[in-house]
């Protein structure tokens, strides 16, 4: 299909390891968003990309979190030295243009990250 694709769908890793989460947005969508959904909580905004640049990194919880986007398409979210509190579902969304408020965001199915 032509939706937002995220991989892996599930990731279990040991505390202290690094993890890399991938998001493949809908073709042609220039805006890409990462969110974190923790158990019993809503969606927490992490970072926004317009093209390859990230004008807003304000939601990244710590310097262990980083993200990049290449070719205006695929994005990776990297968590270094994972901690148990990083366990959550990480959702990616894309929209045609980040500056167009009436464009809804299209979400992937998420990556469920579990830190042992």
């Amino acid at each position, binding site marked *: 299909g032509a939706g*937002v694709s*995220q991989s892996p769908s599930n990731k279990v890793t040991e505390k202290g390891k690094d993890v890399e989460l991938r998001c493949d947005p809908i073709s042609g969508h220039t*805006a890409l*968003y990462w*969110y974190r959904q923790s158990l*019993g*909580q*809503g*969606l927490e*905004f992490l970072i*926004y990309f*317009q093209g390859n640049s990230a*004008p*807003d990194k304000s939601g990244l919880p710590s310097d262990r979190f980083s993200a990049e986007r290449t070719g205006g398409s695929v994005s990776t979210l990297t968590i270094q030295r994972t901690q148990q509190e990083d366990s959550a579902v990480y*959702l990616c*969304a894309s*929209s045609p243009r*980040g*500056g*167009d*408020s*009436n*464009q*809804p*965001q*299209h*979400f*992937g*199915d*998420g990556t469920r990250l579990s830190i042992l």
Partner: protein
Amino acid sequence: AQSVTQLDSQVPVFEEAPVELRCNYSSSVSVYLFWYVQYPNQGLQLLLKYLSGSTLVESINGFEAEFNKSQTSFHLRKPSVHISDTAEYFCAVNEFSGGYNKLIFGAGTRLAVHP
């Protein structure tokens, strides 16, 4: 900054009964409002949105929401629910700053429809 409050974390209801999921937002300026639905182990899907015009908006599967500016509310309703409506529902408001649009989500309401 915008904020969204969903007053009920869980709503149990019997099949074919009516339901209302409540949502209040903080801003008094022009807003765009959204309801997203999340089925188990899936991402969020747009259910309906209010951008402008008629304050009552409808989805294709029988849900509707009414924008009430004076009460800063955007409650979601369905007159008769089905088992398949069991899911988590998120209300969201846009926040436009720095030249881009960011969604601010509520904590979600888990709708459980029982036979």
